[in-house]
């Protein structure tokens, strides 16, 4: 199954969730997502998702100087972002139950 469309739908929620465990910079979020099992996720998708969430006021950011190379932009959840993540979680739980229920009722080949 092609997971790219599924990924697009859940990526904002997944990225917010990573940041909710502690402020992180873009590349760190990408690595967290990949090591959690979303191995196919690309930098452009994660960066674009973070940028959108930032533009929508779900994330705030600050620069932190790095020992190696340029400073890094760390993201943290805003109160709006926390609410959005909570909402997304509830929607996801319901959605998951519904789809799993449908699949369970379907004929398994």
């Amino acid at each position, binding site marked *: 199954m092609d997971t790219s469309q599924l990924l697009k739908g859940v990526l904002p929620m997944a990225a917010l969730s990573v940041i909710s465990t502690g402020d992180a910079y873009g590349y760190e979020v990408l690595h967290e997502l990949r090591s959690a099992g979303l191995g196919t996720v*690309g930098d*452009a*998708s994660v*960066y*674009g*998702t973070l*940028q*959108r969430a930032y533009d929508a006021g779900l994330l705030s950011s600050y620069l932190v100087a790095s020992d190696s190379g*340029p400073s890094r932009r760390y993201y943290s959840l805003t109160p709006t972002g926390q609410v959005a993540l909570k909402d997304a979680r509830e929607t996801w739980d319901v959605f998951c139950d519904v789809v799993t229920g449908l699949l369970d009722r379907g004929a398994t080949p």
Partner: protein
Amino acid sequence: MTTALNDFVRQVDQACADLPEPQRRKLVVDLEDHLRELDADAIAELGDPAAYAAELRAALDLPTARPVPAHVPAYPPAQYPPAQYPPQKSGLSTWIIVALCVVGSGLIMVVLFAALAFFGLAATSQHSSGPGTGAPVASAVPIPMVPVPNLVGGTQAKATESAQAVGLDVRVEVVASNRPKGEVVAQSPAAFSQVQQGTTVVLQVSSGR
């Protein structure tokens, strides 16, 4: 910025040449900041710039690329002026321009009405009483030029009203943007350019989030 990074950003920029100018500039400037954080290995892993651009546009909820003429120049990232969008005009000069537009368009409409009425009457009388009362033809009146108002930053309704006030037609394209729903985020032709009356101004209006 390293050459590899520079080239990469330039190619992403080219793949976004169809986006409205401010949107594209913001995308590229933000992307440069992001990519500077990556080390050389990570940049090598990014793959094909065109594919990266397509993936980024999808993630940003921007429309997929439309082909553009090859001659559209890419902006060398080093030469970006400081970001400034939307352009801010002082309130006073904006009002003076609006006032001039309104007065100008009023005069133009009076002239047009007179010409149309005259031509219409002449045509009617020509029809009823035969030839001999030929009037100057309306097409001899040159189409007046009008300045395009600055419509970015206002609501769709207000922008439409302002454009129509100076005799311009309006076409609306809804685009994804983080600006409030209904706000005009871009316009074409640009503000303050001189165009013929009746020209269609394309407004890009935010769909909101």
